[in-house]
């Protein structure tokens, strides 16, 4: 990789280092819990201010500023404030949180404890995806270790303040990653997302108390923000897209994996070609979904016209998109969870969409109508198409059905299930319209599609 840009490893600082283990002794040898030790004597508001100054945006998918989220918490209700770590990493194409948990669980726990101190939280939960039993065991161990060293539990580091962390294993549903669905699930109910208003977690969250729900990576960043100071952290990355991001690249590239770069300091093209080694031999890259499977797909060769701040416009080739929240949003997609799914020219977009649609139809909680019925209908259409019964009008129908979902649902899964169809149709419409013929030419011995 002679040409590959240097990673800026903050979260991944020690990950993959020879001899670095998830145990607390190793973490302490690498300066672990020093930040917490220094921070416990600082007033909580000051810690919150550091996070606000850092400009940290949530790494779970929506990119909501973490400091603002903490600022919304109702601190006058007299009710306890809960912190929930969203470790339900279920978005297809996303695998950063599990990596952190497996390799460096104490980094997360230190971030959690700092966030608890900053927000007067006495009870934190780590809601971990049910399919990650090993991660749950690692976290349980790490919490026990941290408790034994008095970094968690009662009277932390002699401050007289207590905070417990519990690991809760999800029961296996994508929707448990939606913060209010997660809260319902944590309460022991079916993970149906709540209506907002009135159930904003910052006011009426877990057990109807003010609740902060943050992603694993976000909370790890908190540790580094407190360590280096919010203003210093804000210098990493680009304005309004501060810090580093972990990009999980999967699919048709030579070197898929998780890479940490400063936000906006690396372009999509550099990441895929220079870092990940480009397409497999004899192939060409065709499409990439930049932020987990619900993000809108980008087509290689696409050009975007973006507005500059002064009102002028500039052309931006797809490969030149800097990987930050704002530019990706301006290009009509999103940074999302940072999971990039790369597809080369061997992929039929209809078949890829059939796969994605099957996932969302399977994962819709079924609570509200547009997502419940729309996702299944789209799945049925694309499944019928790949079964060989495509009709020329299916493209228009898919487009119309997908347009009826987003913006009308209880949670963001409405968008999540509709955007793939909308973007696949918008960018690869011809493939859908001509799919009937393509399907006829499919070799008889080809693998089954779904």
């Amino acid at each position, binding site marked *: 990789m002679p040409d590959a840009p240097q990673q800026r490893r903050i979260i991944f600082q020690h990950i993959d280092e020879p001899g670095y283990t998830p145990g607390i002794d190793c973490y302490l040898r690498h300066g672990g819990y020093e930040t917490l030790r220094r921070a416990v004597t600082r007033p909580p508001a000051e810690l919150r201010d550091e996070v606000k100054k850092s400009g940290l945006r949530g790494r779970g998918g929506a990119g909501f500023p973490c400091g603002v989220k903490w600022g919304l918490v109702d601190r006058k209700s007299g009710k306890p404030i809960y912190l929930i770590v969203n470790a339900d990493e279920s978005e297809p194409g996303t695998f950063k949180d599990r990596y952190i948990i497996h390799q460096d669980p104490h980094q997360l726990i230190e971030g959690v404890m700092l966030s608890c101190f900053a927000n007067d939280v006495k009870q934190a939960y780590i809601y971990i995806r049910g399919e990650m039993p090993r991660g749950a065991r690692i976290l349980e161990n790490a919490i026990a270790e941290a408790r034994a060293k008095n970094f968690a539990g009662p009277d932390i580091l002699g401050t007289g303040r207590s905070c417990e962390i519990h690991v809760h294993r999800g029961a296996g549903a994508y929707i448990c990653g939606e913060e209010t669905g997660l809260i319902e699930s944590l309460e022991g109910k079916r993970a149906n997302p709540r*209506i907002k208003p009135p159930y904003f977690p910052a006011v009426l969250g877990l057990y109807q108390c003010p609740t902060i729900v943050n992603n694993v990576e976000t909370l790890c960043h908190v540790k580094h923000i407190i360590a280096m100071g919010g203003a210093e952290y804000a210098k990493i990355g680009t304005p309004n897209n501060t810090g580093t991001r972990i990009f999980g690249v999967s699919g048709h590239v030579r070197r898929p994996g998780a890479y940490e770069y400063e936000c906006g300091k690396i372009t999509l093209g550099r990441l895929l070609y220079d870092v990940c080694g480009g397409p497999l031999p004899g192939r060409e890259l065709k499409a990439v979904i930049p932020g987990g499977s619900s993000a809108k797909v980008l087509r290689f060769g696409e050009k975007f016209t973006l507005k500059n701040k002064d009102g002028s416009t500039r052309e931006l080739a797809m490969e030149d998109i800097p990987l930050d929240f704002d530019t990706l949003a301006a290009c009509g997609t999103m940074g999302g969870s940072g999971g990039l799914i790369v597809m080369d020219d061997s992929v039929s977009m209809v078949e890829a969409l059939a796969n994605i649609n099957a996932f969302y139809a399977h994962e*819709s909680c079924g*609570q509200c109508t547009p997502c*419940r*019925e729309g996702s299944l*209908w789209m799945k049925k259409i694309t499944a019928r198409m790949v079964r060989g019964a495509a009709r020329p009008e299916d493209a228009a*129908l898919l487009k119309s059905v997908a347009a009826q979902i987003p*913006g009308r649902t*209880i949670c963001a899964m409405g968008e999540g299930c509709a955007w793939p169809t909308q973007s696949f149709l918008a960018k690869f419409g011809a493939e859908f319209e001509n799919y009937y013929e393509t399907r006829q030419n499919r070799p008889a011995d080809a693998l089954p599609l779904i």
Partner: protein
Amino acid sequence: MTAPAATPPAPAAAPAAAPDLVTVNIDGHALAVPRGANMLEAARLAGVDIPRYCYHPKLAPAGNCRMCLVETGAPALDPATRQPLIDPATGGQKINWMPRLQIACATAAAPGLHLRTTTQAVRDAREAVTEFLLVNHPLDCPICDKAGECLLQEQAAAHGRGCSRFIERKNVKPKRTQLGPRVMLDDERCILCARCIRFTRDIAKQDVLGFIDRGSHSTLACRAGRPLAHNYSLNTVDICPVGALTSTDFRFKMRVWFLKQTDGIDTESSAGVNTTVWSREGVIYRITPRRNDAVNDTWMPDSGRILHKQIRAENRLLAAKVNGQPAGLDAALDEAVRLLKKAAGAPSRSDGSPGAAATTTTADAGVAASGTAPNPQSAIRNPQSLHLVASTRATVEEQYLAKKLADALAIPAAARHLPAHLAAGDGLLLTADRAPNTRGALLTGLAAGLPAPALAALAADIDAGRARTLLVINEDLAAAGLTAAQLARVRIIYIGTHANPAAAAARVVLPARTVFEKKGSFVNQQFRLQRFDPAIPGLAGTTDDLVLLARLLAAVTAPAAGPAPAAAPHGINAIWRSLAADTPVFAGIEYATIPPGGLPLAPGPLAALPFPEGESLHYKPQLFQLAKTDAEK
């Protein structure tokens, strides 16, 4: 245009506080509504119908059907001055419209809130939701019991696209799931609105329903080993917006559009649940709750829904009898009068005034005569051998006539008996007093005190030979504790609907009508006067209780040598004129003007009696009495 809006009904027991009104704007119409009011309801006040499925006025909003999506906005404020901005284009307030549609059912009224319900975006959203709800719906309206009163049917017609674009296979789900003894589930029709789940969890407090599976394959189910068997299960059928939940009793029996709806009152307890009785050609097919926000909201117990089955029950009394032999009504009445007069002693001739005799020929003979009759105490002697067993299940009108009759026969208070019907209350709509009209018996003066659980005094009088003749109005004396031997020792005149040991032992049986075959009124536990109408004509062989009582009254008050009693009247209005004149608490009330939601009465000191009822849906014993005391001050 600012119109003061009707405030939503406050909880019955709470003193009405001045509502905090805010001005909202719905489709260009400004109206004042209480702060925090549900905007779907507020729109209704403005005459704007917002379609909905999952929203129910008596359940917490779930926001899951997405049918009530509307545009919402708030006045734009100048960031510096915080004053509303003016839109130069319209000259009016500039409104910041939210980019996304919001559900009206979870939107609370706030100052300046604007709603748009007729825009293209809103119409598109409704059409989309309608299409989505229909793609996996079986569309079996022709065989669905809900057809004709189905929200999906109505709103699909109003907001749907009129044709289907769906060519895939519909979901297959269970078609006949027996959720409980009275409720059947057709899961393919279910639109997953969760009304039934919220009802059983939040109102009936029996958290037995839930969804299993996920997405469009979600299926309504009972928790393992806990069927939907509670006494309010059929409310889920009422509130089901589609035909997913049906009543096993009503299923496939009758199309709802053929049925006539009549206002009724559930006679099971003193809660006075308002009902709608659905009938066709003299047959009642079902009973459903009728909304009354002060009494039963939109609920009723399952047990009250099958009361109509008593109408044609095998033990229904359908022929007048004298000494066990079928007799004509006139003959039976004559015999009853003879027994009554004999027991009471003949009235003194000198006390019958010519005026009274003349009025007995008018249409309202019974009432008019009793109203102008001379003091019965002086007219009739030897009263102790005649006892009256009256009923807390009789209507106010019947109780009033019974009281007049008892007065005319000089039956003293000690010889007037009122059996109590007590059972444990369920805290919701079945109260401890399982009779609908205990308060009526007190207010009309028929009884001076609360009903007694057992007729111990009467039993003692029979045993001692003091009580020799009983006039029994629709009460089962055996159930009230009298033995067969005691019943055999007395002459019984029985007015009632169904056979029982007292009726079997009676010298005279006068078949009367059930609550479904007559009109009248009850006073519920809140001292709320509520009227009901006859759903079906009385069965052949039965006579309206009021007619029977009026004719008895006319006969016993008629002078011995006067003209024969005239044909008895259906004189409910005349009875009310007399009742209102006699009884201050009813003063100024006419039967026809009792409003559909009932009329709260001021019972005075009666409210302080130790009634057996505990707290129920809209009744708190202590609070209620305090409120009444305050009102009297």
